[in-house]
């Protein structure tokens, strides 16, 4: 990397690293150290091919997601975040939106990295299942089943957030009928 490229890289990091770190925080379930590690290794990768990458931010985001899945695959589920106490057992009935989100955040922190990554791609990046599958190098069926299991786990670890409605004609339908009482 020559001096001009290094300056461009510094400028990119200065401008975009806050947003990228926020994404890394989502993927790490709020673990600041893990998020920094994830972002730094993704930035190293983009620095290594700075001349060849047209859209560095998109590239870094892709590396963040793929790396997260890769770490999961090698380490298994050991990096699942443990929390000191389970999410509060209060009813969601009277909770405001902000409180619900705090509860949900704790619940998301208890998912595996893979589950959180797939949910982030589906519901934060708003990518269709096929695109998530392409990005992560797995099948659409895997994306679908991981999404299914992740949402089911959220319901299991934080049952107070959800109540189920009638109809259980199939697994997908069962999930789509899960509602939050506000």
């Amino acid at each position: 990397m020559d001096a001009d490229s290094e300056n461009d890289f510094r400028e990119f990091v200065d401008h975009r690293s806050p947003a990228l770190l926020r994404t890394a925080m989502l993927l790490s379930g709020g673990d600041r150290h893990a998020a920094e590690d994830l972002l730094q290794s993704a930035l190293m990768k983009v620095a290594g091919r700075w001349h060849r990458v047209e859209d560095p931010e998109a590239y870094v985001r892709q590396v963040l997601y793929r790396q997260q899945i890769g770490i999961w695959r090698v380490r298994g589920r050991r990096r699942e975040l443990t929390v000191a106490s389970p999410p509060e057992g209060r009813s969601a009935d009277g909770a405001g939106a902000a409180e619900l989100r705090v509860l949900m955040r704790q619940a998301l922190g208890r998912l595996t990295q893979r589950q959180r990554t797939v949910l982030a791609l589906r519901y934060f990046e708003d990518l269709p299942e096929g695109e998530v599958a392409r990005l992560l190098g797995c099948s659409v069926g895997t994306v679908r089943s991981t999404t299914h299991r992740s949402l089911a786990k959220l319901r299991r670890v934080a049952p107070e957030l959800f109540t189920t409605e009638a109809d259980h004609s199939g697994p997908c339908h069962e999930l789509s009928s899960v509602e939050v009482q506000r």
Partner: protein
Amino acid sequence: MNVQELVRDTFQDWSQEEVRPSPDLADRVLRARRRRRARGFAAVAAALVAVVVTAAALPALTGRTDRVRPASFAETVLAHPDQSPPRELIAAGDIAVSAFSGTKWVEQSNGDKVLTRAWQVHNPATGRYERTEWAWLDVAPGLETAAVLEGELPARRIGLLDTSTGKVDRWIEVDRGLASVEWSPDGKRLLATTYSKNPDRFSHDKPMNVNGKEEPGPVQSRTGFYVLDVASGNAEWTERPFDRDRSGFPGNAREDFAWSHDGSLVWAPSMYAPGRIFYDLDGRRMPAPKAEKHVGYPEAGLSPDGRRVAGDFAGADDGINSWVLDAATGRRVEVVPGQQLLAWADDSHLIAWGCDPKRCSGRGEFRNQLLVVSLTSKKVIPLSGFRKAAADGEGRWTPVFSRK
């Protein structure tokens, strides 16, 4: 609000929170990258998926002191003894199985037959081996980039494949046909062997007699080799056709060049011991480098520190063993419980094929698995499941080793 909406809402809310990266983040990344390049890890990042590499690399990345280099060799081992062919990364010491291939003969309508390879290459982003359609490939140190050739060989260009995305980032065009390519030990140059015909196509016009039956035979067409500088794309070609065999034996059609241990010379295989003929980069025949004088047919060759050489089969008195030689004298100094020595994991460990202990003494020596064997202990670590004893096909996979 249903669960999906709440998840979406939570992510959005979370992503709006103010988090400030370290103000010198860019400089830290650049410094870490320079340090790592200096250490020879030219291409690193996605290999961080490996626990071992993470442990080794992160202190440089983060400056944090709570992670340390692996304390023992065992911590560097990624083994999947239940997998054959492997699905997830296999590694030990400084070496990883970066790719592997299976072969099969494909009969052609004109009576020729072509040996075709099915390659799977490790994707650092997913941690898994993935199928590719390339006719030939070799993975650079760091496991991030592979040099690939398109079929049918010979090819007219080399692709530099990003192993994380499966896409070719760059093509290097050449004037002559290529049928093999190998990365230099430092990952900066490529050695590509040139042929005028596909060396894996056996021709019905050149029949050979196999057990009293006429079969399509090999056609020698090697013309020489290119040495390519990867950064600039400059390619220097040297004419070095197939050396006709003294005995008149037709020999192989594929006689690829390979790098010497330090990347200063190239060598081609020879039927005669010790099995390697060395050339300089201008194609002049050279004596074997001093350290490689006793390197023979076993692929592992010289140890990283240049003190030991992987030797041949040492008999099966107490199991299937191989010799390890002193590089300076050629003297047999150790015996290790490996059937075939493939690569040095570090100065005292080798990756080898080892056969099924229950069947080694009988007919089953071809049913073998990857093992780590040690010069300092009798302990053997299985790395993969057992290969099928078939002559070809996916079950008979052949590993490609690259430095991590």
